[in-house]
């Protein structure tokens, strides 16, 4: 299960809507071993494409060095699909190389990017390990303080 704070959840959805029709991407870092996604790092999609995303290689190195210095790991890796459902594509599955991460997909299809749209936006989370996809529940909390003792 992915437990995520509401402000982070909202910021990911907002990023996806803002970058539509290109795919948006980023990570939410958290203390190593905590499974808490606390530090949102929106990344530039170097592919600038509606069907592909890739972190710029220089940005990627800076991000990982920064996480290393802070003793963090990528708790969430997110990206958007802009014309299809929020389910990992074949490419997503092949290229997933962070076995410890929650892979979050947001879909901005069917006008969900429009400023006038105020309905729900698809937001789903998966584990992707060795080519196998397992969807997991997403629980949105106001703050991780509420979940104290749950783990």
């Amino acid at each position, binding site marked *: 299960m992915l437990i995520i704070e509401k402000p982070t959840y909202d910021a990911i959805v907002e990023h996806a809507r803002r970058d539509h029709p290109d795919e948006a991407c980023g990570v939410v870092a958290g203390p190593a071993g905590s499974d808490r996604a606390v530090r949102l790092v929106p990344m530039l999609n170097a592919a600038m494409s509606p069907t592909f995303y890739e972190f710029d290689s220089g940005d990627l190195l800076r991000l990982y060095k920064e996480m290393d210095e802070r003793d963090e790991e990528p708790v969430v890796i997110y990206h958007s699909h802009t014309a299809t459902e929020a389910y990992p594509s074949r490419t997503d599955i092949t290229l997933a*190389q962070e076995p410890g991460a929650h892979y979050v997909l947001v879909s901005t299809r069917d006008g969900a990017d429009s400023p006038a749209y105020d309905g729900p936006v698809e937001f789903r989370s998966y584990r992707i390990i060795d080519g196998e996809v397992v969807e997991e529940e997403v629980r949105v909390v106001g703050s991780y303080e509420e979940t104290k003792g749950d783990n």
Partner: protein
Amino acid sequence: MAIELRVPTILRTYTGGEKAVNGDGATLAEFIDNVNGAHPGLKERIVEGEPEELRRFVNVYVNDEDVRFTGGLKTGVKDGDVVVVLPAVAGG
């Protein structure tokens, strides 16, 4: 002195969980061969094809420089250098 390889999480199965291992070589290709001697299997996750090339979705940096801009596997390395391997974060 030696050359240090920083190993990403997904490849630590080849290094017994170690985050960093040491090796030697005059070029990146030699260094990867050398490290692979002690940690078999590591090389094929970084390099592919014949002639050998870096895998498209694996990034390798020598002293913070992406080796795609410095000669790829032919990039020179020396004692004290730090080689970082990071899988691309990418998808469709």
